[in-house]
């Protein structure tokens, strides 16, 4: 079977995937930091009665890191919510057509959002904008949005190529697209998450 685009797609998929994984890890780290900061805030306030001034400012500024940074990662693994009632009964070319259509819509809106969210950053950068208490500049947080969306755009283009390739030749093996999640598979993924450890306790008393 001729598959001229397959190998290229796989390479791109892996390359972009590395950046996505890194972004996701940063987001996870920020969440851990949020936990630590919250505990420090409570301790500082209740024990030393000197709360971290600008705690809210710091939380708000860091939020963008876990709110949007990993957006391309989630797109890669097909984690964004959708209704699969119709899509799951489709097969072959029809299925790939609707998937490609969805990708085109996504590419359109993300391509609009990138320059205009960059404008939003630029307004903050040029005219000034800050948080309330510490008067921290907000532009770095605003810049994260077009960055994360740019990676998302690359991911969406790869997925569009993946769907188009299958639309052209539905007999090729699926590459560089998220697995179609039928409800059973979503459930299976949930189950895998709880498999790693701990559900059934190893405490001997439990087995008695």
């Amino acid at each position, binding site marked *: 079977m001729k598959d001229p685009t397959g190998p290229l797609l796989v390479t791109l998929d892996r390359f972009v995937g590395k950046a996505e994984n890194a972004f996701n890890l940063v987001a996870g780290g920020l969440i851990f930091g949020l936990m630590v900061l919250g505990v420090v805030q409570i301790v500082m*306030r*209740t024990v030393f*009665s*000197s*709360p971290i*001034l*600008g*705690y*809210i*400012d710091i939380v708000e500024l860091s939020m963008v890191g876990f709110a949007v940074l990993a957006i391309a990662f989630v797109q890669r693994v097909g984690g964004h919510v959708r209704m699969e009632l119709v899509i799951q009964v489709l097969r072959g070319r029809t299925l790939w057509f609707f998937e490609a259509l969805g990708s085109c819509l996504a590419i359109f809106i993300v391509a609009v959002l990138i320059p205009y969210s960059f*404008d*939003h950053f630029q*307004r903050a950068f*040029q*005219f*000034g*904008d*800050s948080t*309330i*208490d510490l*008067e921290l*500049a907000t532009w770095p947080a605003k810049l994260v949005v077009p960055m994360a969306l740019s990676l998302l755009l690359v991911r969406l283009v790869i997925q569009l190529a993946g769907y188009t390739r299958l639309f052209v030749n539905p007999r090729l093996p699926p590459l560089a697209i998220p697995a179609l999640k039928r409800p059973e598979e979503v459930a299976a993924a949930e189950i895998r998450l709880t498999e790693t450890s701990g559900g059934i306790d190893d405490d001997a008393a439990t087995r008695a």
Partner: protein
Amino acid sequence: CGSNESPQEAGKDAPALTHDAAFPKVVWDASLWGNPRAGTVAVDVLAREVEERTNGAWQINLHYGEAISKARENLDGIAIGAFEVAMVCNFYHPQKNPALMVLTMPFLPMETDAKSKAVREAVYAHPAVVAEFARWDAMLYTSTFLPQYEFMGRGEAPSSMADWVGMTVRAGGGIGDAMVLLGATPTSSTATEVYTGVQQGTMDAAAFPFSYSHVAYRIHEVSDWYTNGMAPGSADCPVVFSKTAYDKLPPQYHKVLHDVRSMVDAAQLQAYRDVDETNLPLLRNALLEVSFSPAMRNELRDSVGKRVIDEWIEENQDTFDARGLVELAFEAAGSTFK
């Protein structure tokens, strides 16, 4: 659907003549947050008057509850032309309007309505303020005259200046800085969290526009005392217009805006007085009033107030004429900054 002609039917981009040729059809959107309240009377009256005086040809649609923009992004909305009117608060984004932050300075001479109006008007006319709003394609129409702040708190009432040392207080901007100089510990909190904060003692007192906001956030229910006459300062939440939209208006509409302003201002100031009329007896009955005499206030003004203002001038003089702004503010109230 009614068969009557609705003023909304024509967008602002397609002005059409009504029965009265003197009043072309205009539709403006106004971005507001929260519910209609005493602090939004100015916009309410403005919308009502404008519509009335143009025989319904000019409509200002009020979008409450952040329906068309987040409050802190209202200037962005004006800059991108998303709407023509917005209320903005200077302390929501100090660096978006660094010069207007002068109105958050502590102990400015704004104790009376007349002085408050005079000072704010003078500041609005200052080139630095005009310029910083022009960057956002915005122009200041009028203030909503946020009342002077007072503190309200739980526990032992501060009977002398020394009692403020070590108190955890929620106070923003220049008032917060002044309290730090008095020895208080500042804490940040969203306005809605102040209630539980005061109640639980994670903060001892909070400053809010008096008496309007204290009662709106129900702080009095969990407090033991409040200050009166301390008047440590205020903030400013003006009604702004899109400059582009304003410039597009026909001259007779400019005149309408000019004519209704004194009425809008009067209604706004009256709204706070009405609120006070209900609130003050309530507070006096339930809480201990810590009164500040003018002499005590002047002492605070000359000690901590002046230091905060001096520091602010020093920090900002390189960017704009901060000293000129402060001097102008004092001058407008008939006093001098020294």
